[in-house]
């Protein structure tokens, strides 16, 4: 009855499990979604409860252009991954650069918006509940964009200096998943803050 620790390999069936990168990123996205949910709930909860202004209706403008930029960057990052998968490294660099550019435009837009809010409208995080929830929710999203941009830029650098090849597709794909998530969150934030909230 004695046997070794090794349980004999009898099955020859293919044993394929999901990629741990994708699963890990999916988990991270779920966790991050929960964080955003809480901030969105706080925003909605305090919506219209302020005793004093400024109110969203008075000061917020629709950031249509920057939103379009951010959302289209989802497409470009997808194209980058597809290009890398097919081994077309130059195309990949190009699409990555476009993604970084579009993301930066979005961030620039947010920075400009905040600047006007603070200096023109006098709305800071301390002003009222709207200020509190607005800056924290949009700021949380902007932080995520910033982190994503940093990683995308890094990928771009690697892509440019040629150390990225088709076998790294998996990793770039994981990164692109994160970027898609950031975009999807913006759709929610946009709806809540700029459409419903006004």
């Amino acid at each position: 009855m004695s046997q070794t620790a090794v349980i004999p390999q009898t099955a020859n069936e293919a044993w394929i499990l999901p990629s741990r990168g994708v699963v890990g990123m999916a988990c991270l996205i779920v966790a991050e979604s929960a964080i955003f949910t809480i901030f969105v709930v706080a925003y909605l909860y305090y919506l219209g409860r302020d005793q004093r202004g400024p109110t969203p209706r008075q000061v917020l403008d629709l950031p249509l252009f920057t939103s379009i930029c951010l959302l289209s960057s989802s497409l470009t990052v997808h194209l980058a991954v597809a290009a890398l998968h097919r081994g077309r490294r130059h195309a990949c660099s190009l699409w990555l650069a476009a993604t970084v550019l579009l993301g930066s435009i979005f961030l620039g837009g947010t920075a400009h918006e905040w600047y006007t809010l603070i200096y023109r409208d006098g709305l800071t995080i301390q002003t009222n509940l709207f200020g509190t929830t607005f800056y924290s929710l949009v700021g949380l999203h902007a932080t995520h964009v910033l982190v994503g941009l940093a990683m995308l830029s890094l990928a771009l650098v690697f892509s440019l200096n040629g150390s990225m090849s088709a076998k790294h597709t998996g990793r770039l794909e994981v990164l692109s998943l994160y970027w898609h998530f950031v975009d999807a969150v913006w759709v929610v934030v946009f709806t809540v803050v700029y459409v419903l909230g006004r």
Partner: protein
Amino acid sequence: MHDDATHGQGNSVLLPRPTAWPMALALGLSLIFAGMVTNVAVAALGLAMTLAACVGWFRQVLPHEAHVPVAVIAEEVEIASARTLIQRPQRSASAAPRKVLPVETFLIGNGIRGGIAGGLAMTVPAGIFSVLKYHSFWYAINLLAAGGFVDWASASNAFLCQFHLQGLLAALVIHGLTSLLVGLLYGAMLPMFPRYPIVTAGFMAPLLMTGIMFSALNILSPILNQRIDWPWFILSQIAFGLVCGYVVNLHAKVRTPQFQALSFAERAGLHSNLVELDGSQADPSQTGVQRGTQPGTKNGDKEDGAL
């Protein structure tokens, strides 16, 4: 992903290379946080550490994950048990899976069917009672529904005799849900008590139920408690029990003496005392217990005998 690339050269296994960078990153972040309650200098130190650790960690994984080969020490691990199993006297091809216990089982669907039928049957005595005593079919329904509506607590008889849509709906939900659940329970539990199905299903269970209701009804629904007519209530319970039990039993195959000879734990599927049904009778789909000695033997510690 399970890559076989973890096999290194020769008799070794590739494992991730130990590194202090994760610890350094954690320390860096913690110092940044600690800076918020102590001094900015601490946070600055933490930030520097964080950045350095990020770079260091990055180099561990890109462009290639760092590995280190670990030599496999040849060793023999014995996996054996001193314990034995009970030998089977004969092993037929129809040796059924031991996991399907008990020997025979009702289909869950029968329970649901029984619950529906019983629920319908129950409305008959309740309806008769309602019409006879209050000259309105709606009385019983509204009385049941009053359990769900707190503001009906002081309703008059006249009010209860009228038709109320919400009363009908609430009564349907309460009655339907309870009937279904009790039907399911009948479906699951009747086979455990195969001997006197009519007494068990038709009288014992309804009386038990009535007892529970009797003690709890004052808190559950005081209005119902004030107006309830217990003999009629028992009658409707028995109607439910008889019909539900009958429908459930229609599909039963538990009348075999072999099954009735089993202990309760075996009928419930909790435990097997190693009784084996006659191989010829034991249809694989029905047989669960097959390890044992003789057909139809009644429980007892047959394990010893089987050795």
